[in-house]
């Protein structure tokens, strides 16, 4: 809404771009309004948060593997949170909570959508920047603030929030309930309100940009699947995050003002508290109305990224482009009517449970459509196994093996024994955790030259990173299915102390070591990432021979993305290995008139004049094919 922005982006002449911008360090690197710089800010903040969340998970894995051992080093590192060389049980809960919160929201929502929607939407639809660059900048800084507030909770006396990432009341609503419900929980709530503001500002911008700022010729059905995925993800965010705001506002009033929205009949230290009539289930409804679309907010961008990378590296058109789009739309719509499957054991009416079960199982249909289409795209492709391609295939693998267990959990009857066991942990860590992280990593490897002015990441380190991470992720999460089937509950500090679960200790130790190896493998990624920014191999302008618009933009980052006019789009983005063309890719900017030898009748579906020219050409040049 600033007038500055209006003038900046109205300029469409070469020389103006060179004279207009005298960026200072602050406006270029800190308070930048350029979508490419904001994407980098989101990515690096996201990676930092991911590393922190990973270290937290290693800490609680050590506790699970060695419940009886003391590690004096832990006391040195964590002080009062790990007295006498062992993690404090309440701090263990905080670790689990903050690990979940950071991974779901800060890494896989902001880090993933924030990075790739910002980078790719304007570049792939052919826009000079976002609809409102200023709001876009605010979106990053709110995210940054939310990250700082969330991490600052490690420095308060009682430690961070500990009620689980879903912060169910009454635990989260009564500051006196446990250490993790005090100041840490307040900070969690403040951080999330900032985070939601950031998400909304980002999402609103993405939707407006996709709908209003596409270049000439770029109709909706010519958009790459990445843009479709980011667009629908942003819509999900706009519709679901406000509901969490409502839920959180009521929670704040219960916590700090004494209302009883979620509280009823609470006895604490033998004293009956004055709350009455409130319903903790109400919070669960409000939370999961966001929470379930949220898991699709996490996975859909990763799906879009993988679709694009798989098509580019299989050198084939994506199989079933329309089906891919409609399945994304289907998933988006269905994601709003399945939230009840998180609440099967809350005493829900069995009929209502049945309804939620049916809607949940229906989501398997569009998900399967996507999976089959990825596999069909790879089928007999001329595959190039770049690191990005490997990670994209890894996503498909995790999505299948994690998705299958979703069918089990979606059954309201089966969910009763499986609820809150390690089976659930295994399910969502594969289907949305590992899968989405792999999609994000695939994107980083693939679009690194676009992020960091024409540099490539090292391939060999990429392969090493992929194989170790891929194998270890399965070694970590696969055994958890069996623990869950045996009834091992999640979030327990020392569940192997129970005689019934004693025999799982060896498996826990194994998982922990697999997790440590996976964590060490990430060092190779971090080294590769940061050294390649400065010393990476120089890429060509279009290193992967891809069709989409971002590779037509100059390698060095310029404000406004393209010199001169924005290129016009003439075709869909998946003309790979088109028969009759001399190269195995035809960029979207190449008009059909320049590729007569490879045109097909269906390229002219809504273009009778073009079809006529095509028919004449075919009559003259390919008499055998004309009927």
């Amino acid at each position, binding site marked *: 809404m600033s007038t500055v922005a209006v*003038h900046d982006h109205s300029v469409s002449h070469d020389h103006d771009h060179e004279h207009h911008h005298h960026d200072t360090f602050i406006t270029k690197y800190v308070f930048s309004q350029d979508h490419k710089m904001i994407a980098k800010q989101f990515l690096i903040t996201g990676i930092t948060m991911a590393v922190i969340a990973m270290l937290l998970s290693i800490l609680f894995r050590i506790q699970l593997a060695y419940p009886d051992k003391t590690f004096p080093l832990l006391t040195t590192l964590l002080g009062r949170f790990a007295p006498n060389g062992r993690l404090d049980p309440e701090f263990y809960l905080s670790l689990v909570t903050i690990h979940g919160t950071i991974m779901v929201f800060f890494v896989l929502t902001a880090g993933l959508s924030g990075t790739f929607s910002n980078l790719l939407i304007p570049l792939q639809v052919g826009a000079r920047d976002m609809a409102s660059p200023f*709001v876009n900048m605010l979106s990053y800084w709110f995210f940054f603030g939310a990250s700082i507030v969330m991490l600052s909770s490690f420095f308060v006396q009682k430690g961070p929030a500990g009620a689980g990432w879903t912060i169910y009341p009454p635990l989260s609503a009564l500051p006196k309930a446990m250490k993790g419900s005090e100041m840490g929980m307040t900070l969690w709530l403040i951080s999330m309100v900032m985070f939601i503001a950031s998400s909304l500002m980002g999402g609103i911008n993405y939707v407006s940009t996709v*709908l209003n700022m596409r270049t000439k010729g770029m109709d909706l059905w010519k958009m790459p699947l990445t843009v479709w995925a980011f667009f629908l993800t942003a819509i999900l965010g706009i519709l679901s995050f406000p509901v969490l705001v*409502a839920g959180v506002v009521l929670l704040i009033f219960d916590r700090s003002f004494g209302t009883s929205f979620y509280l009823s009949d609470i006895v604490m230290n033998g004293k009956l508290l004055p709350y009455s009539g409130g319903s903790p289930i109400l919070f669960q409804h409000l939370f999961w109305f966001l929470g379930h679309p949220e898991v699709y907010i996490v996975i859909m961008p990763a799906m879009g990224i993988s679709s694009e990378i798989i098509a580019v590296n299989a050198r084939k058109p994506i199989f079933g482009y329309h089906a891919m789009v409609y399945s994304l739309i289907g998933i988006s719509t269905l994601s709003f009517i399945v939230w009840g499957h998180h609440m099967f054991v809350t005493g829900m009416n069995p009929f209502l449970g049945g309804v939620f079960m049916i809607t949940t199982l229906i989501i398997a249909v569009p998900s399967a459509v996507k999976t089959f289409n990825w596999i069909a795209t790879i089928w007999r492709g001329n595959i190039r196994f770049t690191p990005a391609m490997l990670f994209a295939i890894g996503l498909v693998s995790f999505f299948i093996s994690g998705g299958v267990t979703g069918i089990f959990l979606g059954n309201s009857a089966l969910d009763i024994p499986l609820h809150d066991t390690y089976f659930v942990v295994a399910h969502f860590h594969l289907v949305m955790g590992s899968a989405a992280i792999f999609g994000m990593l695939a994107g980083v490897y693939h679009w690194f030259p676009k992020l960091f002015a024409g540099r490539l990441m090292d391939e060999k380190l990429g392969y090493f990173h992929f194989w170790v991470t891929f194998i270890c992720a399965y070694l970590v999460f696969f055994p958890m299915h069996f623990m869950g089937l045996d009834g091992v509950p999640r979030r327990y500090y020392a569940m192997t102390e129970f005689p019934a679960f004693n025999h799982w200790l060896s498996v826990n130790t194994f998982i922990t070591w697999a997790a440590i190896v996976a964590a060490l493998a990430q060092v190779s990624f971090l080294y590769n990432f940061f050294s390649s920014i400065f010393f990476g191999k120089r890429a060509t302008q279009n290193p992967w021979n891809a069709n989409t618009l971002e590779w037509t933009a100059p390698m060095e980052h310029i404000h406004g993305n393209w010199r001169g006019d924005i290129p016009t789009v003439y075709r869909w983005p998946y003309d790979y290995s088109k028969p009759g063309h001399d190269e195995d890719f035809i960029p979207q900017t190449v008009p059909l008139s320049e590729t007569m030898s490879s045109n097909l009748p269906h390229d002219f579906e809504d273009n009778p004049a073009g079809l006529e020219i095509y028919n004449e050409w075919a009559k003259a040049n390919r008499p055998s094919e004309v009927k």
Partner: protein
Amino acid sequence: MMMAQIQQKEDRLSLQPKKFVMWLFVFASFMIFAALTSGFMVYAGGRGHALNVILPNIFMYSTGVLIISSVTLFLATRATKRQEVSKQRLFITLTMILGVIFFGLQIDGWRILTEMNIFFVEPNASRSFIYIFTGVHLLHIIAGLLLLTSALYTTYRSKPQSIIQFRLEIASIFWHFLDIIWIYLYVFLLLNQN
């Protein structure tokens, strides 16, 4: 001359997405109120207490004031399109004054409610919801007043007509939305009085 024309055309092109941003924000806000009212229904329909409050008449007056403010804002928009600057300023100012009066009436409504022994912090959360609905709506009213201020301020600067019109349009989308959402909340509360 040619250059100026291009500039203007592009200006208009790049204002459109920003207007769309406001529409999307309206959708997001609407979801907050939808969630709060659904929360009320889940609470009151479950084991929670019913409202059992006859709403004081002051909310009827404030509703009237807000509706009139929408009318004055419409007149301001018309004046802007006809480029009648003084009328435009008059009607925007009038809208803002009515907005402030609405704000005051709502706060006074809270005072009257407390005199009726209906408090925000009490075991019956249905009654707390009245304060939540009006409070969250008032926060939006503050944002709306800020947008109107920016629209008014622009008329005193030498800005192109397209910008002046754009600022007012942004403010009107939001203000009319606030009007409609308040009517929705008021009717919702009236229907749930018992």
